[in-house]
């Protein structure tokens, strides 16, 4: 990564990196450090004294049933959102990859939801499936379903997953389409000459060749489900009913909002940081593999 032709200057390079360095240090490293330090401290109820308590905040967190459930719930949401959104997007991408008339139009009509903000997604879906005034709720009730996501936790979770998956379709579609278009036609033609029917061609040739894209998207979708669902959850259910739609990020937010235990909220932040670092680590390993592909 070394460039041969370079400039000689003593001060200029520092002046050039200074703005970014300053912002990164003030708004990134300092708060992150604060979170780590805070997570080892315990403040008394009046905020008058603090003491160093080693891993007590973490231990307490893990003994909390609600926290454990939030972890499981977050992973379940991530998995459900990723699988449903990826499979639907893959189906659409495979169709759009065919030499069809108007394929550019299809692409345009499928990618725009990327630009819809999570809170707006939440508002759109709660409006459609609102228990008393939702347009779709009428039909659900006509089918004999007692539909009330504002009272029923499982239905609320289903609604969050549905809305979050909907938003992610366009992103996944775009990357699947790019992945499909990079598969050499000659490989598919060879399979066709060997007599493989389209379905067989897809599962034995296209799908394996697409696996790097699938893996990449899986990681991205999980990270998305961890963080970007906050806006969806906040406008639809506020983590409720009960705590049935409270994810880890939502819990950090709502616990901190109540202003209660600073140490616990910091410990939650640190655990989240570790999870994201692991996820991005996996993603980076994969990116390296893609280069050699």
């Amino acid at each position: 990564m070394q460039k041969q032709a370079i400039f000689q200057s003593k001060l200029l390079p520092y002046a050039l990196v200074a703005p970014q360095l300053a912002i990164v240090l003030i708004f990134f490293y300092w708060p992150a450090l604060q979170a780590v330090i805070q997570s080892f401290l315990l403040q008394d109820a009046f905020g008058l004294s603090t003491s160093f308590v080693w891993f007590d905040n973490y231990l307490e967190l893990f003994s909390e049933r609600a926290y454990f459930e939030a972890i499981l719930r977050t992973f379940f949401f991530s998995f459900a959102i990723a699988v449903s959104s990826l499979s639907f997007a893959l189906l659409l991408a495979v169709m759009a990859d065919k030499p069809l008339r108007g394929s550019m139009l299809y692409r345009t009509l499928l990618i725009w939801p990327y630009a819809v903000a999570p809170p707006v997604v939440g508002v759109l879906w709660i409006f459609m499936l609102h228990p008393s005034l939702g347009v779709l709720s009428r039909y659900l009730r006509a089918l004999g379903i007692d539909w009330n996501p504002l009272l029923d936790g499982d239905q609320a979770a289903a609604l969050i997953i549905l809305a979050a998956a909907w938003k992610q379709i366009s992103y996944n579609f775009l990357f699947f389409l790019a992945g499909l278009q990079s598969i050499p036609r000659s490989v598919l033609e060879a399979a066709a000459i060997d007599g493989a029917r389209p379905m067989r061609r897809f599962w034995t040739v296209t799908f394996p060749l697409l696996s790097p894209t699938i893996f990449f998207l899986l990681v991205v979708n999980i990270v998305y489900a961890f963080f970007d669902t906050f806006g969806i959850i906040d406008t639809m259910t506020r983590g409720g009913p009960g705590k049935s739609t409270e994810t880890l990020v939502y819990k950090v937010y709502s616990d901190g909002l109540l202003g209660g235990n600073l140490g616990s909220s910091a410990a939650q932040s640190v655990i989240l940081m570790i999870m994201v670092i692991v996820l991005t680590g996996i993603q980076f390993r994969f990116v390296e593999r893609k280069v050699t592909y």
Partner: protein
Amino acid sequence: MVEEEGFRRYVAHIILWIGIAIVAFPVYIAIVASTQDNALIANGQMSLLPGGHFFQTYYQTIFVGTSGSTREPVGNMMLNSLITALLIAVGKIAISIISAYAIVYFRFPFRMPIFWLIFITLMLPVEVRIYPTYKIVADLHMLDSYAGLSLPLIASATATLLFRQFFMTVPDELLEASRIDGAGPLRFFWDTLVPLSRTNMAALFVILFILGWNQYLWPLLITTRDDMQTIQIGIRKMITTTDALTEWPIVMATAVLAMLPPVFVVVAMQKLFVRGLVETEK
């Protein structure tokens, strides 16, 4: 050889149109709802066809706001969102391009440690450090300000990495040539590198603008004054009151207005958008 028979092609068209319908349906409902009477919607009697309140609703939304929950004109919220999104996009591009330039075209002590300091920020979104960041912004007296809304979101490495990668592909001969012409480092940057980076900057701008416009958790925490709300925050506040009082046509009009700018950017600048999306994920 891999020709599609007519029947299969037909099926593909149908599946794609079903997909488009599923993707578009929630937005269609929002548009329709924003043109109808609130009483009708509140009774669960909403029609699936547009009503006659289009101008009235949008006028009230943009210039007046809801009569109950927020009372803040959505036009003002949109202005806040626009300023924030522009600050984030322009700010991030500006500080990233110069730091990438320093890292690629200069040798100086602590070059690699600095690069790593910036690089690591790639890993942690603002969500995992919200309260400590909030405290710093509060200590700096930046609550309810555009600086507070945008600066913490500028602290990330994606753009720096992108420019670094691009600069590495710029042939060394260009630098040699401009040096022979007597150009110093700043001249070379302005006259050669910046023009060459134009497409990258535009692609990045599209993505960052959308991300900035759609920010939610951060503005939710640091804006307390109604006149500093972004549109995403405003829309949430509109549905906080008990359901019976929610003015749904206005909420839906706000949703439509909140979608309009970023969706327009995606559709109108599709090539740049796709490029930016793929590049920033590398």
